[in-house]
């Protein structure tokens, strides 16, 4: 069974590879490469896989999951310019894929320590574009 918690954060980013010139970045990332950045209302869905605990009836305590996502992701990411204010995006291009992977990295160790199996991080950049990360 999967249990999913949805949270939102608003942030700006610029998809720029510092090793490439402006023309190459423009060809690669299009409008996303504007160096001054632009913003999205990101929606992150975190899914945990498991069987309901026979006593509590829960796969995982959603209050705990919510607190973890807020602490590790929402508080550091919300209302920030990711490239300038949130590591590792000073050196890793904050594409939707890389942001989803970073969210996975921030959540997975604590969930694993609590015997919870992180199944998927789904990150919506807009309602028309989302990425599913499984590792």
């Amino acid at each position, binding site marked *: 069974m999967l249990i999913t918690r949805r949270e939102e954060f608003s942030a700006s980013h610029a998809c720029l*590879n510092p090793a490439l010139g402006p023309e190459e970045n423009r060809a690669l990332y299009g409008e996303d490469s504007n160096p001054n950045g632009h913003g999205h209302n990101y929606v992150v869905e975190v899914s945990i896989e498991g069987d309901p605990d026979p006593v509590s009836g829960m796969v995982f305590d959603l209050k705990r999951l919510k607190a973890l996502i807020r602490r590790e992701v929402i508080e550091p990411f919300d209302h920030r310019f990711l490239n300038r204010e949130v590591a590792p995006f000073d050196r890793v291009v904050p594409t939707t*894929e*890389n942001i989803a*992977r970073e969210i996975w990295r921030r959540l997975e160790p604590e969930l694993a320590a609590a015997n919870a199996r992180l199944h998927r991080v789904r990150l919506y950049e807009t*309602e*028309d574009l989302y*990425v599913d990360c499984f590792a």
Partner: protein
Amino acid sequence: MTRLTRRYRFSASHRLHARELSEAENLALYGKCNNPHGHGHNYVLEVRVAGPVDEHGRVADRAALDRLVEGCVLGDFRHRNLNLDLPEFTSLVPTSENVALVIGRRLAANWRQAFPAPWPALDKIRVYETKRNVVEQ
């Protein structure tokens, strides 16, 4: 493996009518969707691709995906009568299932031209005829 899903929209009309069946049988089978003059939907198409994240932090070049979908699907489907304007549906009833099959075939046939490398792969498509009806393959 990471997946990227992109959502597109097109509006089109269609009529569900099987040539093999009588008028009465078609009406019984398809109900209102058998209306001889057709009717329309705001279709939503989701295209999911899968692959490793490349050195630029991407599973797929969105612009290349958008060009492919525009070129071989949306450009032909948008504001058209599917039965009359698309060759596939002269012999195929444009149910959501068949719309998804045709879109899948068109994308697969043009995939390597848009994405010559082994990745990304076309992973899944979903067609929403309305918010309540969705098919996927």
